[in-house]
């Protein structure tokens, strides 16, 4: 139990350490993974089929933004928006290394421009705008590009009159852009109100981790807010709190399940049910034309559930089958945001 707590605690030091590693594998999408919670080992293909959730224990692995879009919609079924916006370096910032070098490394590591991907997508046949953060790009931190793309996503969804889905996975504001990164909190909060004026809903998905200036801005303002199991959701992380106040925090501090009890989220939703759950709430709040009057449950509801079931059945259901492949040690490199 303590191991679980330790493994999924976000330590900024650890994140930075990971960020510095030169020998990191490339994109996590194709990598085999060892579950940090139960040590089960899976091929990349198994992980992808099971939406990067450990079939044995339900541990939720991190997912890249593009793979998220495929999980929510149909494979390849989205149109990416504003993919060529890139970060500037307004402060000529250098800590241990220059910010421009960090961006270059993140770009080559992830194959992405920035820590967020925006797209037009259909989730269970409901057209939406999706803004998906990617923790693998500089810890999902929010600088001017993330703020700008989120604001555009809000304005675009409002203008088209279709729902906005935001998935957060971020350590907070991007330190390297200083005060201007802080201002992105203001920009995103204000931009969200475009949707209120257009009377379209915002569905917020809190993935691990959602902390700092991201939790204290748009991420806490969803109309419907779902959290993934085990996601850390906090303004101040456990380490900062323990160092500042000398409090001893419970192992599940800030975790999705506890934040549900605290009244901070509407539900904790397993990733394998997430698309169906979003589809369901969108069919209530923003049904495609005519569907609001349907007396029978829409087809996607059964289809979605069946599909989840099929995926689950096609995977090894017990660790026994894969015991022989379990390796000592763990894939902590890509464990969810240690």
């Amino acid at each position: 139990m303590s191991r679980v707590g330790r493994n999924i605690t976000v330590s900024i030091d650890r994140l930075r350490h990971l960020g510095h590693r030169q020998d990191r594998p490339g994109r996590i999408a194709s990598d085999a993974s060892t579950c940090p919670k139960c040590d089960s080992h899976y091929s990349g293909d198994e992980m992808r089929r099971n939406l990067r959730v450990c079939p044995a224990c339900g541990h939720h692995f991190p997912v890249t933004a593009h793979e998220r879009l495929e999980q929510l919609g149909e494979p390849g079924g989205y149109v990416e928006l504003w993919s060529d916006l890139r970060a500037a370096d307004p402060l000529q910032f250098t800590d241990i290394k220059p910010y421009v070098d960090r961006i270059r490394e993140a770009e080559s590591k992830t194959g992405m421009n920035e820590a967020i991907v925006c797209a037009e997508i259909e989730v269970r046949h409901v057209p939406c705008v999706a803004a998906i953060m990617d923790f693998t790009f500089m810890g999902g931190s929010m600088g001017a590009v993330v703020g700008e793309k989120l604001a555009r996503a809000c304005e675009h969804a409002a203008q088209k009159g279709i729902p906005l889905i935001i998935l957060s996975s971020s350590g907070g504001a991007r330190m390297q852009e200083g005060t201007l990164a802080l201002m992105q909190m203001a920009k995103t909060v204000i931009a969200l109100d475009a949707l209120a004026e257009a009377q379209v809903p915002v569905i917020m998905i809190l993935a691990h981790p959602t902390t700092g200036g991201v939790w204290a801005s748009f991420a806490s303002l969803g109309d419907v807010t779902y959290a993934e199991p085990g996601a850390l959701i906090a303004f101040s992380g456990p380490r900062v709190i323990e160092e500042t106040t000398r409090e001893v925090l419970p192992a599940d501090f800030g975790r999705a399940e506890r934040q549900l009890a605290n009244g901070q989220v509407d539900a904790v939703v397993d990733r394998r049910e997430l698309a169906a759950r979003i589809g369901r709430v969108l069919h209530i709040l923003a049904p495609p034309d005519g569907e609001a009057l349907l007396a029978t449950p829409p087809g996607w509801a059964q289809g979605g559930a069946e599909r989840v079931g099929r995926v689950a059945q096609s995977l090894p259901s017990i660790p026994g089958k894969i015991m022989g492949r379990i390796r000592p040690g763990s894939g902590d490199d890509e464990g969810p945001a240690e």
Partner: protein
Amino acid sequence: MSGGKPDGPSFVRRVTGKLGRSSGAQVDEDLWASIQLARHAERPYTLDYINRITSDFEELHGDRLFGDDPAMVAGFGRFHDRAVAFVGQQKGRDTNERTYRNFGMASPEGYRKSMRVMEIANRLGMPIVTLIDTPGAFPGASAEERGQGGAISRSMQLMWRLDVPVVAVVIGEGSSGGALGLGIADRVLMLENSTYSVISPEGASAILWRDASQAKRAAQAFKPTAANCYRWGVADAVIPEPPGGAHTDHEQAAEILGQYLQRTLLELEAQTPAERRVARRDRFRRLGPLRDPEGGVAMASGRDAPPPG
């Protein structure tokens, strides 16, 4: 100070020039000195200003939900023949008071109290002035469990929605979302020796250098001075302090602040609520340079000129 019009352009320009050049590897001692002044133990705090610039100030207490947060002050006062709502983080002067005020680190109840007062002000049509002075929102387990993140985001949301004029003044240390929670305004003013940053130098040092002793270098990297914030477009004006800093003369510091506030409020009161809200949104929408292949090299938000007087 002379008459109703604050002087000081030349003074501000001089300071701007001095701080504005800060770059390069070596530690800029002027910049560090300015940051130390922002947190000077004798610096005037929120109530020091409010009590000097208002006649009659009625402080309100409690968020009507959970409790009262002494780290946040909120209430109404008379300012130049009108009622004005004031809210702001409050630091303490001696050890007991510092503990009582929680070092100016507000809890969710603080933001909810200030929101309550802002809603009343909006309903009654009185302008709102926020005074920002905090190392950040309180990082405690109890604050987290009562929704610190949501309290800050909802405070920002409310401030953007307000119909009445809103002015935010960074009077000392403005760090992190805890500061920005009171920062969504038609005009953001900064005292000459105040700072406005994504994180305190000490916090940045621990995170980025993994060494708490690198605060000077962190400050150097963030350059969060009033003059730089003006240049970035984060601040709309820099308010001069008495020679040597606000701590040397509370009366004069408050007098200058009052003059700037009055002038700013008169400007804003000449606009309609709709005009103010559009401008308020656009003001924050512009902030944050980036490389946009379609829109040119960068979306510049900054200014080249020094702050006007």
